[in-house]
């Protein structure tokens, strides 16, 4: 009876222009038969260092984060800073 575990990025979504939602699925199998699956999630924004991300995630980010999108994100951040809590 052999248990194996494998992890992979199974979902990359672009949300609201600049947010890249990433999901990693970890699957455990016993003798090739599915046993369980767990998810781990994170969201990337244009101001983040993505060098540690998988290449396919970096590729999506680089396509989505055009100069126009980056500029819009910086504008959004500036607006957020002024509408923070009282």
């Amino acid at each position: 009876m052999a248990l194996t575990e494998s992890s992979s990025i199974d979902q990359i979504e672009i949300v609201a222009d600049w947010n890249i939602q990433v999901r990693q699925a970890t699957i455990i199998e016993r003798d090739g038969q599915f046993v369980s699956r767990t998810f781990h999630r994170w969201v990337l924004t244009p101001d983040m260092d993505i060098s540690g991300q998988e290449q396919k995630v970096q590729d999506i980010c680089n396509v989505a984060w055009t100069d126009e999108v980056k500029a819009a994100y910086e504008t959004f951040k500036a607006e957020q800073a002024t509408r923070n809590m009282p």
Partner: protein
Amino acid sequence: MASTINAVTTGGGGIAVGGDTSGVIGLQSNGTTFATGNQYGIGLGTAVPSSGIGLAFPATQSASSDANTLDDYEEGSWTPSWNVTGGSWTSSSYVAKYTKIGRQVTCNMYWVTSAISGTKVNALNGLPFTSANDGAKYAVTITANSIGLSGAIPVSELNANATTCNMQFSYQSTTGWQDFLTSAISSGSTISMTFTYFV
């Protein structure tokens, strides 16, 4: 036991479908399987239940525009981190989980401090989903142990179209909320945060 399909003629009538314990029952409409049944429950769309007994949703949501349709369920973990001016807030351990039901996401996070530096904590980062871009703000419930300043409690909120929770202190005797100063935190301090938002 062999698979069977029987007409039910008693009561209101209907169709009874049975299969053996290793079998799978598929229900189709227009040539597309919309539900699968086995000994573990019922799967919707491409989902196949694999343990316990339950209702399984597809791993990738097929969003419905109908307000009365439940179209997603997912459990998982996320990685919390902090935006700290001039420093960092590190942990000796943490637990961060989420559950998404339809468009509603509930997150929980428990953080045990190992070290803190810098001047103020601006935000909790790393939320698993982006909040809906609808102009809303969401309240965050916080409990903390050994975090606080005299007459102040930590407060937080999540903005629309965001993946961070802003952090501040609310003082009993001061109007408005103030900076979440790192001087209020020490090694061993713990903080728990729970919040629910829409995506």
